[in-house]
């Protein structure tokens, strides 16, 4: 009954989305003033229906109704209750439903927050957004129905993949999707702007908070994914250039370029066609990413047609959404005329360079991810693209880009002067060189990469601090005056500074974790110990115990350094009988200077337990850095700008007048 209710809600959502989309397009065309209110109401209705469907599926998981196929395939009565709930999106159908729910949640958020400005543009945005929702709901209903029944229903379910039974991974998809799907709003705004044939600084102002919100969610989502890999895979791998990871990195890169070019458009009324293209690309990559990954396309490159019907549907949606929007772009983008002029040395030109670099980096990741697929499609030849390719191409490109970060922040809009900026950044350069040399001297492992990474992080970090100090006139005027300048500084500037500072910390942490890591392993019997980087790790004992839906072996390790006793660490190995799979719960001692990371494997009778110990310097700063990066994005959302949108009523009426005459 509950399943049927959910399915019915989904069907209704499809209907409402279709009707709303068509009527809104017609209404905008005929200039019906009632259409805006109608579009808003329809958007909220879609959200309520999707929420109903999602709630139904959640109830089905909570009560373990194994007569529903996805529940039977992904749940088990012994599974802890929390994972019964997160299991709702731990499978293809459920995760697609979550995607749809978030999509309509964004539309509803726009409906609830939309100010009475640019009514035509916003109505068109609703129409485009509803089209996407309709396509998506149809995909759910026809090829991935989460409410499909199973008969005869089994006595118990097949349990959720144990790798997914982890708090990190449970929270990862919602965040990631909130990021992916958030870019649907900017996409719809871009399509609406193309239909209108007009885009300006006000468009950028309306769109910016949505872009920043989506970007912030995506940043958190990617960081959670990396953290999950770090803690769960048992060897501290946090990024492997795996196609699935690349699929989330590409929209992030495009989104990063987008929020930067959006700023140029808002300030200088230029880069219009480019910014619109980025808005389209960002969502296209999100869409391609979700679909290709979730349908198992990219996990193994050739699994594209796992379910041929589903594959065709996916391709159809991709062609309609991406192809359709790009065709519109080709037809209409020439209407978007810039008014601002570019001078070679200005903040906008450095931001353009930023865009080109990030765009190229994104293309590189795209190429690396899809190349094997292309090659196998056209020939029998095979080429594999892995981490070495990305390290050799992506990293240097990002490195050069980072050199620009502090310079860009300090250059003036319109006409900047490079020389005074560079003079002000001198301390950052000195600090960067000193840090690089220091890193070269302290660490003897892969010295060049470590030194470069440290120097870059220092350059960006100190550069940002100098920038802020300059803006506050710190030291030049009394402290109190600086403080009041700090309060008056627009939140957008704070957001930029905080995000760039977070970037510096992240770069430093990446350098530490990858260039200076140490590892050792040995077979240990209880009482035996091994040494790494001055630490002594002694295996105390190993004990078996039963968990809720697994059996586990827990190893206790005594850690000491020299004479000092540093306490005990506990690592686990779990075996999930239903799925016949094992997972590792590593023991990690986290300190600001680095992690001590212990995992152990299956014992051999004579030699004891294989114990692996790693030192990951500054690993904690990966998470802190990405949190600061996200905070920067959130701060910028809060920036209302110097003039609020509604205060520009006069401009609005002139716009409206122009529309009437044109």
């Amino acid at each position, binding site marked *: 009954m509950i399943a049927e209710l959910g399915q019915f809600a989904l069907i209704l959502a499809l209907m409402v989305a279709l009707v709303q989309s068509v009527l809104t397009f017609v209404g905008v065309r005929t200039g019906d003033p009632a259409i805006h209110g109608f579009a808003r109401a329809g958007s909220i209705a879609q959200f309520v229906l999707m929420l109903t469907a999602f709630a139904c599926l959640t109830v089905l998981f909570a009560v373990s109704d194994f007569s529903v196929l996805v529940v039977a395939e992904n749940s088990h009565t012994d599974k802890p209750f929390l994972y019964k709930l997160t299991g709702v999106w731990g499978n293809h159908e459920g995760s697609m439903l979550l995607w749809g729910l978030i999509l309509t949640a964004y539309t509803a958020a726009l409906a609830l927050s939309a100010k009475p400005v640019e009514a035509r543009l916003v109505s068109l945005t609703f129409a485009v957004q509803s089209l996407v929702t309709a396509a998506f709901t149809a995909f759910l209903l026809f090829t991935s129905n989460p409410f499909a029944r199973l008969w005869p229903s089994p006595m118990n379910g097949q349990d959720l993949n144990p790798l997914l039974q982890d708090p990190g991974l449970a929270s990862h998809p919602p965040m990631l999707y909130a990021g992916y799907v958030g870019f649907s709003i900017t996409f719809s705004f871009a399509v609406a702007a193309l239909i209108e044939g007009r885009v300006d600084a006000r468009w950028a102002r309306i769109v910016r908070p949505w872009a920043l919100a989506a970007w912030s969610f995506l940043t958190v989502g990617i960081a959670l994914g990396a953290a999950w890999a770090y803690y769960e895979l048992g060897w501290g791998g946090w990024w492997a250039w*795996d196609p699935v990871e690349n699929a989330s990195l590409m929209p992030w890169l495009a989104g990063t370029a987008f929020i930067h070019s959006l700023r140029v458009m808002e300030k200088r009324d230029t880069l219009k066609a480019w910014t619109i293209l980025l808005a389209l690309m960002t969502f296209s990559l999100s869409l391609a990413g979700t679909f290709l990954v979730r349908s198992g396309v990219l996990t193994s490159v050739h699994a594209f047609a796992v379910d041929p019907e589903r594959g065709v549907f996916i391709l159809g949606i991709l062609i309609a959404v991406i192809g359709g929007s790009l065709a519109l772009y080709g037809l209409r983008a020439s209407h978007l005329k810039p008014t601002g002029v570019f001078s070679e040395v200005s903040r906008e030109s450095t931001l353009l360079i930023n865009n080109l670099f990030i765009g190229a980096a994104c293309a590189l990741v795209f190429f690396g991810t899809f190349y094997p697929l292309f090659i196998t499609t056209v020939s029998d030849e095979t080429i594999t693209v892995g981490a070495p390719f990305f390290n050799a191409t992506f990293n240097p490109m990002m490195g050069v880009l980072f050199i620009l970060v502090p310079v860009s922040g300090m250059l003036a809009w319109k006409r900047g002067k490079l020389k005074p900026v560079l003079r002000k950044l001198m301390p950052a350069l000195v600090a960067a060189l000193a840090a690089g040399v220091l890193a070269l001297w302290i660490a003897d492992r892969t010295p060049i990469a470590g030194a470069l990474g440290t120097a870059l992080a220092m350059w960006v970090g100190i550069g940002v601090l100098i920038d802020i100090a300059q803006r506050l006139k710190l030291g030049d005027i009394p402290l109190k005056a600086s403080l009041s300048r700090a309060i008056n500084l627009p939140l957008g500037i704070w957001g930029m500074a905080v995000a760039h500072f977070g970037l510096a910390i992240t770069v430093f942490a990446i350098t530490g974790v990858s260039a200076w890591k140490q590892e050792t392993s040995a077979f240990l019997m209880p009482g035996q110990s091994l040494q790494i980087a001055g630490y002594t790790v002694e295996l105390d004992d190993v004990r078996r115990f039963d968990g809720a839906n697994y059996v586990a072996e827990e190893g206790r390790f005594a850690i000491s350094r020299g004479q000092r006793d540093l306490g005990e660490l506990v690592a686990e190995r779990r075996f999930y009988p239903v*799925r016949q*799979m094992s997972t590792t719960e590593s023991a990690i001692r986290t300190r600001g200077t680095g992690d001590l990371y212990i995992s152990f494997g299956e014992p051999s009778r004579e030699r004891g337990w294989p114990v692996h110990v790693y030192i990951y310097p500054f690993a904690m700063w990966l998470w802190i850095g990405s949190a600061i990066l996200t905070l920067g994005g959130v701060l910028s959302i809060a920036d209302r700008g110097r003039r609020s949108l509604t205060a520009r009523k006069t401009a609005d009426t002139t716009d409206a007048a122009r529309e009437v005459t044109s």
Partner: protein
Amino acid sequence: MNRLFLFLPLALFAVMAAYFALGLRENPGEIPSQLIDRELPAFDLPPIQGHETGLASADLAGEVSLLNVFGSWCPPCAIEHPMLMQISRSGVVPIYGIDWKDPPGAGTRWLERNGNPYVRIGNDAEGRVAIDLGITGAPETFIIDRAGRVRYRHVGVITEEVWEGTLLPLVEHLQAEEMP
């Protein structure tokens, strides 16, 4: 000219879409291999960390066997693994493994954690042998006959159905064949 330039993104996407459509047409499990009915390319791989013997192409001759390409970094391999363990326990056919593009020690740790279904494992850290074999992604599995020829290639996860329906019958057929 400038206006045509604006259609460039669409043109690029059209090419992409065409490739996806082509990819869609292929049956994922049965990408034809140039190697079918040919001798396995010669290789001699070192052992993975902590193991004494590596894997050479010569090891596979004389008996029908499976050659499975895996990596600890590959999520579908984790899904496939219980099936391999089951095949290995049944003793129907020996499984040889190629650990593909793993960081040092990662493969060993992975097997310690999940169990080791392989008779011997070769370490293909750089992926050279995988290129000779035409591997496009992990997991991939070849059926090798007594004469050391490749008889079948399965791309992707070996599920219960693939094993019962395709691989096992072929293995039994090959085992029944007279030595040429």
